[in-house]
């Protein structure tokens, strides 16, 4: 028995799901991860590099990779694409000026072949800030309807500040991935 098959077997047993969080800088990726993990979010420095968090959710183990979104380190995102089951794209719904940048980066990301099989959750973050665009408006700006038909995707409004919407989003993501990967259970 090869090492790979052993790993696969272990992975199947533990029901591991690998989730990659990406998005422009200042969109709130790290705060979201801290919030769903129940940690303090009052002091969050811009991510230089990446953070990994392992969270047990229902019967699944989520490995969440939170990768820094500053422009200079976006080119390193591709180092994390391998084996990704779920992709979380975080949008700062209050940053109206950079929505075009956000669309361009997302379009780029979705061209990536290694991510073609992963489910896509778009979190329209910062809904608590007055003046933020609603998820439906974000969906229009990002032109999500025009996405490849084979992609499983969902957009959810949320606030890492209040925690609203996060559970709903991750619940969809986990169910969607589980129904693809662990279809036999």
């Amino acid at each position: 028995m090869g090492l790979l098959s052993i790993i696969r077997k272990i992975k199947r047993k533990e029901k591991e799901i690998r989730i990659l969080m990406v998005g422009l800088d200042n969109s709130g990726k790290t705060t979201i991860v801290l919030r769903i993990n129940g940690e303090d979010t009052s002091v969050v420095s811009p991510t230089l590099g990446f953070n990994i968090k392992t969270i047990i959710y229902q019967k699944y183990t989520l490995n969440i990779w939170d990768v820094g979104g500053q422009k200079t380190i976006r080119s390193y995102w591709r180092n994390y694409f391998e084996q990704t089951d779920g992709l979380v794209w975080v949008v700062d719904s209050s940053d109206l000026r950079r929505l075009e940048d956000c669309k361009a980066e997302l379009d780029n990301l979705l061209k990536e072949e290694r991510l073609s099989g992963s489910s896509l959750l778009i979190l329209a973050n910062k809904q608590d800030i007055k003046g933020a665009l609603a998820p439906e408006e974000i969906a229009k700006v990002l032109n999500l309807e025009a996405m490849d038909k084979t992609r499983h995707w969902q957009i959810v409004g949320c606030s890492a500040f209040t925690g609203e919407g996060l559970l709903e989003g991750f619940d969809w993501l986990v169910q969607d991935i589980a129904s693809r990967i662990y279809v036999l259970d």
Partner: protein
Amino acid sequence: MENEEEVALSSNPNSNLLVADPSLQKKRQSMLDRLSNRHQTRLDNSLTHRSAESDSSSSPSFESTSTFLSRFSNSKSSIESQLAQCQLCDPTQVKSHLDQISSSIFDLEKLVAENSYFLPSYEVRSSLKTTSDLRQSLEFLSAELLPKKKFSFRNKPTRKDPIAEPKGEEKEQEPEKKSGFRVPDSPGFRNKKGEILVHNFKGSEVGEFSISDLDSCEVRLMGSVRALFIHRLRNCRLYTGPVTGSVLVDGVEGCVFVMASHQIRIHNAKMSDFYLRVRSRPIIEDSCGVRFAPYCLTYKGIEEELREASLDEETEKWSNVDDFLWLRAVQSPNWSVLPENERLGLVDISSSIESQLAQYQLYDPTQVKSHLDQFSSSISDLEKLVAYNSYFLPSYEVRSSLKTMSDLRRSLKVLSTELLPKKKFSFRNKPTRKDPIIEPKEEQKEQEPEKKSGFQVPNSPCFWNKK
């Protein structure tokens, strides 16, 4: 390489002797030819090899910095000339031409990547910079030459709507569809030059605030706000109370910022000073000549606002700056701590309107007019504030604030008659007659943009209609 060998041969002590003999000289010449031939074929080979198997990991690297640099500069200049040509070529072929350039830039990037393991880090950085510059100029060019596809949703909604919705409603929605989705402007200050812009968030429910395209302005923001976006400022001074979320600064030059925030990100800043209180590490990216110092702002009620925003304690994070373009242990050359003797003292912006009023008597007489106008607009801003909040204020408060404002207006009038010389013998007295006609027009204008963009926040706290 050819030259090097020639030099090497001639510097050989024996070579002088050899040159004397004609037959040997002949031999030597043929050897040189052979060498140069071999060099040429090797070069060709490696080139064809590269283009043929550009994907294979075994593509060549020359392990010599000078070879790399000459190759690099050759490709660079060829791409540059292609870019220049592109502007002249037939518009129908522009697309393919641009694609071709793009792929040669990609090749160049690959070349850098393949050779990066032996190149000195300075060379790597500078070549990466060159390639990114090339990419950028390509982008500019394509934006210029290729017509942009306008973003629209024509297909989906029209296909779905007839089935889902009755026809009457569909007609109502048509105008919206035509205009497409427009991202509304957020509240803020935009496109100003040489003004003092004051805004107090206190009492209003402002989430995010944008400050963009200002030149030689002073901005004073009091009260706390959730998020602040700063874009393209030149020679400005900006003072802010607490920002409870994040501040994003992009493209500033020659500015001074005094800010308190939970998070601060600074992009493309040049020669600017930042006086910060921040709960996490500030970061800079693509910036140079930026200096940092501790927060130094005061106005009436700032302590309480800072405490509510959990920004009352000095965290010393202002000196812990991460430079994303300098990921190493030694100090980044792009930022420094502002020397203490060059720092600003405590800045007091508790410019209650009364104190502004007092100041104006000291101003340069030629600028008095514009200052007074600005002051007048701050009063109307204040009036707006009262109007917006009157629905929940106790009637006594409303009355007293209205009284205060009419007092302010009166003192402004007194001041302006005092400071501005009355124009005698002028035919320009018409403005007084025009005023009542102009004003309603301006009000209409004010409302128009709101109607068009369906998502505009109704009471966006901007300064409209300055006079």
